[in-house]
């Protein structure tokens, strides 16, 4: 036995023997008990939080509020208590009837003053900005959103902040304010990691919003460019099937309006290949064939149900048909 082992043995002996030792044992047991109670509290708090978030998601605000309060009471862990606190503030903020934005604002402001850090801080900044914006405090909201965007560009929360800030200013799509919001979005998105099909972030949502804004402002080329970027990073699985279908078809139709039939044909073809279960798929097929984007063999290879040889003959006989 080494020295350390011998000392420990002696130490335990003295604990067993002496009154002082008994006192130390009590302290050790109490510490163990406290640690166990804390762990149990943390577990209880985590369970309550998980349930609370689920209830929040389904907008069962009364039970979410109760569970967040329960998690706060049970939470020995400061991080869990803070999560519960933010959850309770979110309930107050988003409750559809009888919402209490002031209560939420007070909670977020206090947490930010207390120096909350990391992703929870980014969340507080965004939620507080949203609450300010709904109260018409646009300058305060902008300051917080900008802090989140610049401070946490690696987080999707920052991308969400940029989107929220933009759509707030698109209330009148043809206004100067909307123009400024578009420019701001185009510029600030460069702060974020470049989107890829595997990790698109909120880039498809940026491009959806930009496409819509440019379209209504009459800039069809810019709208088509936005939709082109959308199509490059999205797919019917990454975004919703219906939105993907809509954007692809808009890119095709606007390309035709811009006098670019080859580009249009590619989008029509993509529409048929990617979203054949959309009601507009046959129309897109007709256009793709008419614009020379699909040949007969390629149409046959698509194996579209109900499309007979006679139908294919008709498709290729009508290549000069207009949209």
């Amino acid at each position, binding site marked *: 036995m080494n020295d350390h082992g011998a000392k420990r043995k002696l130490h335990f002996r003295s604990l067993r023997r002496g009154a002082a030792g008994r006192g130390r044992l009590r302290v050790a047991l109490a510490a163990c008990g406290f640690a166990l109670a804390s762990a149990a509290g943390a577990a209880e708090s985590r369970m309550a939080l998980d349930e609370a978030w689920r209830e929040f998601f389904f907008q069962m605000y009364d039970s979410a509020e109760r569970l967040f309060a329960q998690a706060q009471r049970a939470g020995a862990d400061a991080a869990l208590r803070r999560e519960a606190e933010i959850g309770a503030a979110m309930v107050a903020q988003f409750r559809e009837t009888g919402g209490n934005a002031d209560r939420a604002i007070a909670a977020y402001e206090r947490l930010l003053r207390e120096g909350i850090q990391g992703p929870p801080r980014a969340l507080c900044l965004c939620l507080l900005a949203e609450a300010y914006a709904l109260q018409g405090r646009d300058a305060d909201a902008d300051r917080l959103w900008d802090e989140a965007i610049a401070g946490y560009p690696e987080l*999707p929360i920052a991308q969400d902040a940029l989107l929220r800030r933009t759509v707030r200013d698109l209330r009148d799509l043809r206004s100067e304010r909307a123009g400024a919001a578009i420019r701001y979005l185009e510029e600030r998105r460069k702060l974020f990691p470049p989107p890829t099909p595997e990790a698109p972030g909120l880039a498809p949502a940026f491009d959806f919003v930009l496409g819509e804004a440019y379209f*209504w402002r009459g800039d069809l080329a810019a709208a088509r460019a936005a939709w082109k970027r959308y199509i490059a990073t999205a797919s019917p699985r990454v975004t919703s099937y219906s939105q993907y279908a809509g954007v692809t078809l808009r890119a095709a139709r606007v390309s035709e309006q811009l006098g670019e039939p080859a580009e249009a044909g590619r989008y029509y073809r993509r529409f048929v290949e990617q979203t054949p279960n959309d009601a507009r798929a*046959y129309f897109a097929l007709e256009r793709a064939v008419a614009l020379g984007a699909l040949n007969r063999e390629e149409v046959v290879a698509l194996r579209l149900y109900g499309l007979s040889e006679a139908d294919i003959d008709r498709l290729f006989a009508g290549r000069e048909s207009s949209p």
Partner: protein
Amino acid sequence: MSRGAGERSRSWVNGIGLLILAACYAAALVNVARKRHEETTHEVIRITHWQLELGVREGLQELIRRYEEKKAREGRPVRVIQIPVTERAYAQYITTQMVGGTAPDMVALGMFPREFFGRYFLPMSEALQRPNPYIAERLREWDARADLTDEERRLAAAHRELRDAKWMDTFTDGLRTLYNEELQEYFGVGFSQFTIRIFYNKDLYRRVLGRDTPPETYRQMLEDCERIEAWNRERNDTLVPIASSRYQMNLLRSRYTSGMTADLFREFDVTADAWATNVELLAATIRGDWTPEHPRHRATLDLLRGMARFFPRGFMALDRMDAGFSFVQGRAAMITSGSWDARSFLKNIENQPADRRFEVGIFDFPVIGADDPEFGRYFAGRVSESSTGTAFSIGITRYTKNQDLCVDFLQFCTTPESNSILNRYAEWIPAVRGAIASEMLEAFTPNFVGYYGQANFDFGPRSTVLNDQLFWPFISGEIDFDAFVRQLREQLPAVAALDFVRLYREQAEGLPGRRARRAAYLADIAFGDAAKAEDAAARLLRAWDGLAPIELGQAWMDCLMEDAARTAAARGRLSPFNEAFFNEVVRELGPGPWRR
């Protein structure tokens, strides 16, 4: 009868009553005991649905039998209990069971509020991302045999093709229609698909028309109807050319309105997505492009009235079943209905006396020939069925103690082979790729070819009611087209304005809920571990798919209306419609950029 005899008789009756009561009580006790015993010896799962059409229960029961046998062979005794509930009681039954926490393990989806999905159903997205193991298992069995029948060979080929596919991709529509975009989850799988066609009495056709082929064009169909009427006059007979009620008329109305106005529907699309929403159709009316007097509107109504001439007298007072009854009795030449009615029609015809039985044919809605003098220039083509989704869909409730077993059972039921079996019994269209439909149903197979959309004046619920109120008197000949148009012109501006205001406000009303859901994903990103945060980031994007169009909803409606009002003004079309419409909108929403 003496008083004593009366009392004796009463006591007898009471005795019998008591005996029946005791017998019922005993039977119930035995039943409960048997079920309790079964639950101790078997894993029990329950499935409920409202599909009481002929053959459906039998088809599902056959799958249950095969599944139970298979599980027993594997040494895992399982009992699957089918609980069919009548359609009328289903909504109430499910609501009670869900709220009470006693719902069956698996439930047919539908007839309950959408919020039930999130609260009471288990998301199935994860299981649907993996291959269905029963497809590979059945394929291995077939590969080990050399004596496959032709059908087994066909099914084996289908199984081989789907062996490594995600379970969701084995369905004909990729389960697109069962995806809940708001909650971003799949909550079930579908067993069947439905389309609509026209059934006809081949024997009657042979007898009256001297042929048994169906009409190919609308005009031929009318000619057939005329000849049947002539037959009636000559022989004092009472054959009905087209059995119909409001239900069937609505099917025809939807199909032919689409065929006649699909081009216009695309023309009125402003947002370049080849789809005219209600607001875009309304904008076309404000511009003066789409009016009640529009020749296409008139032609569509005339076309429908042309068919209605051959419906039974007083058809509007009949219900769907009455119309079906007259067809299966052999008194009608044709009837429009869905594939869901095929088996019932055939069975009921089989049950007729021998001299009344007849051969049934099925054909697609006749097209309008390009050379048709009245309607040919308007008709775009048949209606596409590319978006036909899966139906008879089953989800798993949160109350189940056997989630894995339920998923396993649903996987068993949705191999191409099992799906063929179920739908053969039901005479329905399979929902799984490669499943074989019965020969009769080939005519019902969804067809990708065709167009979509309808130009109409149904801008929202109020204008739809108004349109309906005028449509039926017009179709039945009570009012003529001029009266229809006059009344529509008088009443449409006010109801269209209210529909518009409702849509406009709905955009803002939908925001808090969607913003909250998206905030929940933000919280997951802030507080979750790496995997949870990654999943939440993907869901955040899809949450914005739904949120962004609503955030911009009022803005683009303003642009659309501004443009429409400007175009109308430039064309000098400050019509009474526009004046009344804008006055009503301003009264409701107050003045705005385009609301003077």
